[in-house]
């Protein structure tokens, strides 16, 4: 067999993870003479080049960068076909050179364990060995080769180290039958569908432990010990809940002072405009429309800054990946792709980058399922709404004597979004988007001290985006909403003065005028629909306006309560205005139960035009954004109805 091969034209494939140094090695072996061609019907590039194998010329094929050969993505499918000899234009390789980045052995060797099973001889080429040794790590190459039962060569494409030995080893293995170092199938039989993956990683872990010595061994061991606690299925969740409670509690307590100052500042500005300008329509627009509308949202800047401070700290320290790992276990059980966790984590800041991040998911059905649930993650635009409700009705109350009720409620809202997302994914993956979840393993980044510069940069970027939005979109919507609450101006005659609250001829009282405004008419039109949720027409107007962007609810309430304030009423903060607001028949418009119902509605409703636009673009269909709008709004209405009606039945107000 060996002799026959020596006389035939040889084909060698070069396989390895992306960024493992594959192309550098390819260029070193072929002398930069590669040609580029397309595989039929696909856009994946193939590079081939001549390689002098100790006097014998071979065709060296550079396969696409791969993490595995599970054939779940196009690249993996093509690579498997080439190694099996199933690609028409390519001869079956006589050997495979597995390029392994020695600084990331565990991840890179996973592909090698798969290559063994193709029946093609494998030679492992260890790259980045200089970097590996620079950190005073050591690798016993003979030991690794003995465990893998295949030749291992340390190479350096730049210095030429190991290039000749590699060629020699490849010549030696051609025509031989590769040995599989471990029965990976036994793992699959014992541990279920993902058992083979775990068996591979167990084997790799043992191989690395036997052959590699890390200078920072103690650090590694400590990191592993911490991981064992933080990713524990019970203690991990307890720690996650505790961390989030501390985060939310801190946000409330730290942000209250700057928020009060900002609120007072906007109040003073509004009063200054009123006193320094002649009374009239322009002063009304500036004070009740622009300052109340934009100021109502801007006062939540301290919360936004603190939220992103904590998100950045958790991300940068490496804890967020551990939290994602905990949730990933749950997500995989309902059939979601493991790669869904990153888009979903991104969606806590904003659903738009989250939805765009789903592009990493190969399966269309898995990708769409993730897109459909991403908006359930509580984004930063919901924070002003949650904070307004909590600060107005639940501030100062505690659970178990020391945990702030506000922090518990905030955590509950985030948890509600996650739970509903998981339930919806479970249903979608068993109905319209039915498909088996592909296996996925997550790499946990090392722990490190957060970089202050990165954290500050992230906070400032978010603050700028928030203020930009307040100064553009929110400002425009505030002006339009003010106009809708201000016009048409009702002039009354003697016969209608009583209906309008006016004692004399002239204009209606502001509280009556707003009822007859365009916004009032619209609010009254939808009131029968929202009444079962405990909402009056003013909340209804704010709800409709918030379909443009969630935080518009706050500015709308601010405008409505400012415009609708009668002249003899004193100027008050939004919190006080919400607390004291009355319905048309004199009842309190808001109760703690109404506030809770509104928060539940906001967790689940699809109130963001930008998100819908992105879903339309990413799915290239009207069906999915419309489906998303319909099912999320329906779900939000039903959940809010259940919250309000059951709360009322239990005697809550």
């Amino acid at each position, binding site marked *: 067999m060996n002799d026959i091969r020596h006389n035939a034209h040889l084909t060698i494939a070069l396989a390895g993870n992306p960024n493992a140094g594959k192309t550098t090695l390819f260029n070193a072996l072929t002398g930069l003479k590669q040609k580029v061609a397309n595989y039929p019907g696909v856009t994946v590039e193939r590079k081939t080049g001549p390689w002098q194998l100790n006097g014998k010329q071979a065709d060296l094929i550079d396969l696409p960068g791969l993490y595995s050969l599970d054939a779940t993505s196009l690249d993996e499918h093509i690579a498997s076909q080439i190694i099996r000899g199933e690609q028409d234009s390519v001869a079956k390789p006589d050997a495979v050179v597995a390029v392994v980045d020695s600084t990331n052995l565990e991840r890179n060797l996973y592909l090698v364990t798969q290559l063994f099973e193709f029946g093609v001889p494998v030679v492992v080429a260890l790259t980045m060995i200089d970097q590996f040794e620079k950190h005073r790590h050591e690798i016993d190459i003979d030991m690794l080769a003995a465990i893998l039962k295949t030749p291992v060569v340390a190479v350096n494409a730049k210095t030429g180290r190991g290039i000749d030995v590699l060629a020699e080893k490849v010549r030696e293995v051609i025509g031989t039958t590769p040995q599989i170092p471990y029965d990976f199938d036994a793992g699959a039989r014992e541990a279920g569908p993902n058992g083979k993956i775990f068996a591979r990683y167990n084997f790799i872990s043992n191989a690395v432990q036997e052959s590699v010595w890390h200078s920072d061994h103690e650090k590694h061991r400590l990191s592993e010990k911490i991981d064992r606690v933080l990713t524990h299925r019970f203690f991990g969740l307890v720690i996650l809940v505790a961390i989030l409670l501390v985060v939310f509690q801190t946000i409330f307590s730290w942000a209250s002072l700057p928020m009060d100052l900002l609120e007072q500042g906007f109040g003073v500005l509004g009063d200054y405009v009123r006193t320094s300008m002649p009374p009239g*329509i322009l002063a009304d627009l500036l004070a009740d429309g622009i300052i109340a509308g934009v100021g109502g949202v801007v006062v939540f800047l301290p919360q936004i800054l603190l939220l992103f401070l904590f998100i950045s700290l958790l991300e940068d320290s490496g804890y967020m990946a551990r939290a994602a790992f905990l949730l990933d276990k749950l997500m995989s059980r309902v059939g979601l792709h493991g790669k869904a966790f990153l888009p979903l984590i991104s969606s806590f800041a904003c659903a738009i980058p989250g939805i765009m991040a789903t592009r990493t998911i190969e399966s269309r059905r898995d990708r769409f399922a993730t897109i459909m649930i991403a908006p359930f993650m509580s984004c930063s635009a919901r924070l002003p709404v949650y904070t307004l409700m909590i600060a107005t009705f639940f501030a100062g109350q505690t659970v178990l004597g020391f945990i702030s009720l506000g922090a518990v409620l905030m955590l509950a809202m985030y948890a509600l979004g996650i739970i509903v997302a998981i339930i919806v994914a479970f249903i979608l993956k068993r109905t319209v988007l039915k498909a088996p979840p592909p296996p996925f393993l997550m790499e946990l980044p090392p722990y490190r001290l957060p970089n202050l510069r990165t954290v500050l940069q992230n906070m400032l970027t978010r603050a700028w985006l928030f203020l930009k939005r307040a100064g553009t979109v929110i400002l*425009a919507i505030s*002006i*339009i909403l003010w*106009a809708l609450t201000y016009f048409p101006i009702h002039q009354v005659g003697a016969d209608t003065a009583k209906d309008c609250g006016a004692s004399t001829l002239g204009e209606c009282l502001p509280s009556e005028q707003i009822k007859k405004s365009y916004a009032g008419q619209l609010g009254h039109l939808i009131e029968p629909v929202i009444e079962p949720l405990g909402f009056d027409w003013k909340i209804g107007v704010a709800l409709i306006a918030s379909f443009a962007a969630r935080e518009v609810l706050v500015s709308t309430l601010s405008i409505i309560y400012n415009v609708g304030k009668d002249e003899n009423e004193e100027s008050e903060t939004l919190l006080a205005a919400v607390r004291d607001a009355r319905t048309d028949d004199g009842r309190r418009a808001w109760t703690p139960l109404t506030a809770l119902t509104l928060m539940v509605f906001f967790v689940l409703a699809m109130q963001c035009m930008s998100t*819908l636009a992105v879903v*339309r*673009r990413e799915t290239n269909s009207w069906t999915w954004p419309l489906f998303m709008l319909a099912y999320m709004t329906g779900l939000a209405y039903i959940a809010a109805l259940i919250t309000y009606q059951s709360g009322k039945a239990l005697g809550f107000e």
Partner: protein
Amino acid sequence: MIQNVIVIAIITAAIIYAAVILMRKRRAFSVKPGCSDGCDCNK
């Protein structure tokens, strides 16, 4: 009178700005020519 003019100008500007934003969103909603499955069209 002058107050009315200024207010009308501000409201008109806000409406135009909102309309421009809506138009931009509508463009994002529209189907791009040559995209059959959409997934890679905007990469």
